[in-house]
């Protein structure tokens, strides 16, 4: 998070908050015009909150949080004022012209000047608004222009086989900020425009993330210095685990063991950083990434359905007809000696225990005798705007859990999501009964996420809104196939699905 303000419901604050938003937007990479428009969107929203959530009361306050990633800026506003629903206020230009009735005008401007606008009714916890503006990317073209002469043939599956060059020697070393441009060029030369992590095309963004240690990783080079491979490890912000990803080997230098050498070094980095676990999200449109993970001892522990929109992965999925599901593969780094107590829901007990066994993690399943609920639940929400998915993380259960979760899901459903993921703490004795209590929400199994949040193990369940053809989901490992079968059975027997068909 970049900033957090507690704002009074006094109209005097609109101007300074918008000034901050505009400057912050520019600093994050928005153009001056987009930063201005985004600040106008905020101006509209703050005005509506002052006028309609807290009419005639300038002594209340509400919260604004500012976040940015390399590709977008996001503002989250939470308030506890009078209920109002933006969807019930639709702007009618004719009405405005003739009657001067401008109901809904503010929301129209908010939607126009933002790239995403979502409203989530959190019941007794008030309302939450999220505004997102994408950061425009211009550097790609410059980069491509610069590297045009050195551009290699884009990969095609036939050509790759014929044009690979045998390497006698290459080096693998930790990435440094000055490797940024080579990393971007490697991504372009290998994937053309098709790679789905846009930031990787931007040397400055790569450099920033390496400097900030948001990203660790390795780069492989020929003896003459030419970059031929890159593999990253990205530490998770709320746990001592990290995700491996962004793997690329220059097509003509494949089949030289470059990927394997890089993975070996990534595992060494993870050990040196005292990380407890590495994980990777492997696409299921082809088994290649899962195979690499499997070779290094990763075990598939979860299957996340419809996890990403249908991005084209060159040479693999030109005709793939559904959102892409991901296998979540985990590799324990630190051996677990103690048997930690876990509380497993009956219906998932066998598959979770089998997954623990597969991962070599010792657990001590506990019988629930009694548990205590806090007054209010502690729930975190993360929205992925590019894949239309949301993640709800339950840190602690309160007496209000069912109503809070139901309202949150209702609010998210208004924005037509692809999936809603729900992570439940397995070391919390309330989980089995609370999962049973929310059965009407029709979440289905996704898998076990060891050490995933707050260094604790979580059960991931998922609510999927797309039609899934499981025949199109390729899973490499035998155990992963068991998880797929389990998920498919629950998906096909889901009451919501039966109703649909």
């Amino acid at each position: 998070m970049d900033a957090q303000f507690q704002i009074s419901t006094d109209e005097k604050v609109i101007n300074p908050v918008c000034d901050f938003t505009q400057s912050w937007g520019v600093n994050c990479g928005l153009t001056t015009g987009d930063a201005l428009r985004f600040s106008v969107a905020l101006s509209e929203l703050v005005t509506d909150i002052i006028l309609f959530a807290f009419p005639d009361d300038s002594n209340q306050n509400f919260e604004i949080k500012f976040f940015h990633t390399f590709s977008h800026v996001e503002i989250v506003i939470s308030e506890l004022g009078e209920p109002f629903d933006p969807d019930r206020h639709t702007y009618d230009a004719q009405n405005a012209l003739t009657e001067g009735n401008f109901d809904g005008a503010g929301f129209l401007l908010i939607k126009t000047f933002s790239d995403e606008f979502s409203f989530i009714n959190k019941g007794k916890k008030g309302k939450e608004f999220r505004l997102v503006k994408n950061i425009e990317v211009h550097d790609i073209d410059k980069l491509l222009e610069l590297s045009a002469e050195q551009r290699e043939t884009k990969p095609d599956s036939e050509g790759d086989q014929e044009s690979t060059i045998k390497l006698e020697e290459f080096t693998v070393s930790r990435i440094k900020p000055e490797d940024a441009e080579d990393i971007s060029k490697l991504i372009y030369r290998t994937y053309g425009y098709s790679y789905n992590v846009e930031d990787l095309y931007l040397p400055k963004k790569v450099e920033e993330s390496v400097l900030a240690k948001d990203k660790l990783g390795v780069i492989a080079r020929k003896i003459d210095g030419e970059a031929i491979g890159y593999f990253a490890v990205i530490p998770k912000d709320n746990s001592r685990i990290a995700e491996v990803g962004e793997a690329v080997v220059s097509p003509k230098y494949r089949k030289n063991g470059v990927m394997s050498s890089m993975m070996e070094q990534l595992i060494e980095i993870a050990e040196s950083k005292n990380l407890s676990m590495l994980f990777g999200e492997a696409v299921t449109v082809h088994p290649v990434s899962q195979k690499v993970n499997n070779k290094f001892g990763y075990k598939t522990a979860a299957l996340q359905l419809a996890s990403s929109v249908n991005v084209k992965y060159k040479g693999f999925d030109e005709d793939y007809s559904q959102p892409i599901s991901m296998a979540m593969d985990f590799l324990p780094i630190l051996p677990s000696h103690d048997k930690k107590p876990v509380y497993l829901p009956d219906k998932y007990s066998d598959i979770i225990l089998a997954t623990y066994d597969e991962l070599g993690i010792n657990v001590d399943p506990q019988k629930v005798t009694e548990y205590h609920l806090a007054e209010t639940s502690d729930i975190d929400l993360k929205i992925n705007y590019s894949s239309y998915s949301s993640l709800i993380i339950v840190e602690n259960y309160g007496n209000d859990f069912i109503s809070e979760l139901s309202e949150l899901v209702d609010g998210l459903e208004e924005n037509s999501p692809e999936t809603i993921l729900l992570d439940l703490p397995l070391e919390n004795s309330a989980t089995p009964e609370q999962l049973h209590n929310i059965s009407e929400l029709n979440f289905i199994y996704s898998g076990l996420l060891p050490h995933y949040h707050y260094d604790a193990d979580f059960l991931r369940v998922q609510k999927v809104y797309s039609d899934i053809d499981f025949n199109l989901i390729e899973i490499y490992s035998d155990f992963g196939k068991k998880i797929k079968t389990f998920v498919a059975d629950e998906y096909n027997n889901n009451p919501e699905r039966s109703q649909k068909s």
Partner: protein
Amino acid sequence: MNTITTRKEAKNLDITVRGDFNLRTKKMILSRLTPAIHTLKINLAYCERMDSEGVIFMHRWLLKGNNLRIVKPPVIFFEILEILGLDGSWNLDEIIAN
């Protein structure tokens, strides 16, 4: 900080907006209007950000049959006018003063 300076002359009120033209600015202008005033001249040369409150205020002023002149409106003003579908009904040649 958004402030306004105003000068009344017979049926005219000249206003200079400094800062945003938003809810607060609108309320400040409303507080200085009297039934006798029929023409508003709003100088927006020092205003970069305007939201719907500013545009709606001016539109309603025009709907009542009053006169409006605006000076150097910011670019965002034209964008808002277009988004709200008001651009066709405003005689901008007449309203925007040179």
